[in-house]
């Protein structure tokens, strides 16, 4: 399954419907986001059966970016039972994201 691109209207339902979710806030014009993108794809491959792995384009979904106070991208936010548990701003290695997922599964 590919990483799910979430729109504002479906966001809350998707996050609340997943025990654990990870969301990558990104945009086309952001070089560092392009580096994180394959890492997020890797998370989907490794955890996709247990975790919602999604992305939000901050250009298309201003509201979501503003609601979560995303002020620098890439920002990757982790949710557990619908509530934010952690966020990582900027480029991180796969291991950093995996450790957070493992701690919340």
């Amino acid at each position, binding site marked *: 399954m590919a990483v799910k691109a979430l729109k504002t209207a479906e966001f809350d339902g998707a996050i609340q419907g997943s025990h654990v979710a990870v969301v990558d806030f990104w945009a086309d*014009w*952001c070089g560092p986001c*392009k*580096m994180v993108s394959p890492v997020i794809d890797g998370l989907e491959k490794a955890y996709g059966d247990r975790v919602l792995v999604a992305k939000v384009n901050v250009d298309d979904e201003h509201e979501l970016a503003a609601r979560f*106070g995303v*002020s*620098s991208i890439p920002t990757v936010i982790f949710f557990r039972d619908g509530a934010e548990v952690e966020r990582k*701003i900027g*480029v991180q*290695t796969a291991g950093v994201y995996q450790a957070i997922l493992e701690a919340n599964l």
Partner: protein
Amino acid sequence: MSYDVLVIGGGPAGLSAAINVRARNKQVLVVSNPMEESPLWKAEQIDNYLGLPGVTGPEMLRVMHRHAQAAGVEFREGKVLNTMHMENAWYVSIGSDMESAAAIVLAGGVSRGKKFPGEEELLGKGVSYCATCDGMLYRGRPVAVVGYGDSARKEASFLEGIGCKVTYFHRPGSCSIQGSGKVESITCDGKTAAVDCVFLLRPTMAPTELFPGLAVEGGYVKVDRRMATNLPGVFAAGDCTGLPLQVAKAVGEGLVAGQSAAAYAVQNGQGR
């Protein structure tokens, strides 16, 4: 596309590394600021470079640049913001682009200036090093640009173009950034501006910011005789490795780093 070697920095060390990668018929990309922003550009006269007594900084840079171009070196103007090692390749973000290479030569010179008070704490919370990355998040809002050269002015114009209200601080002596949880204002040389974001556009990122885990010694990148750092496939040359900060030393180290990086790319590149 993917390169064998990506060189960060277009001064004597970087260009020397690049032509030596080309001498082994490998593909190389040099990422750098415009030549005119090199510290060497300001040198009025260089008297200790063998065979070229009295040459000026601009003359030297132009002739080295021409040599590299003739050798088939590719160039990209911009600043490397992040790097990541993944599956035998280095991924590098340059403004809104990304490139990859089997090996890296770090030849970005010395980063001058310390971090400002508030910079570390508010990084990602309104402090940004990349106007093209984060500018769009601040459309219609007040931002500050702390700039050190023409490329920073261009980035400030880009921000104005997308609707940011820009206060520009040109080469300030000292700044501090205030805010709790997010940026609220910046004060540079006694002048304060209330802003939502501060873009710090320094000419060079500190090597340890670019490469987390990079070993340094006395403020300089630690290298061995092959100019290898402690990170796989990352070599360093020139001023960033330490004193003396001289062109001849940079060119020699660039040669070694270029050869080492090309050899590394042959051994570890993906079928190139």
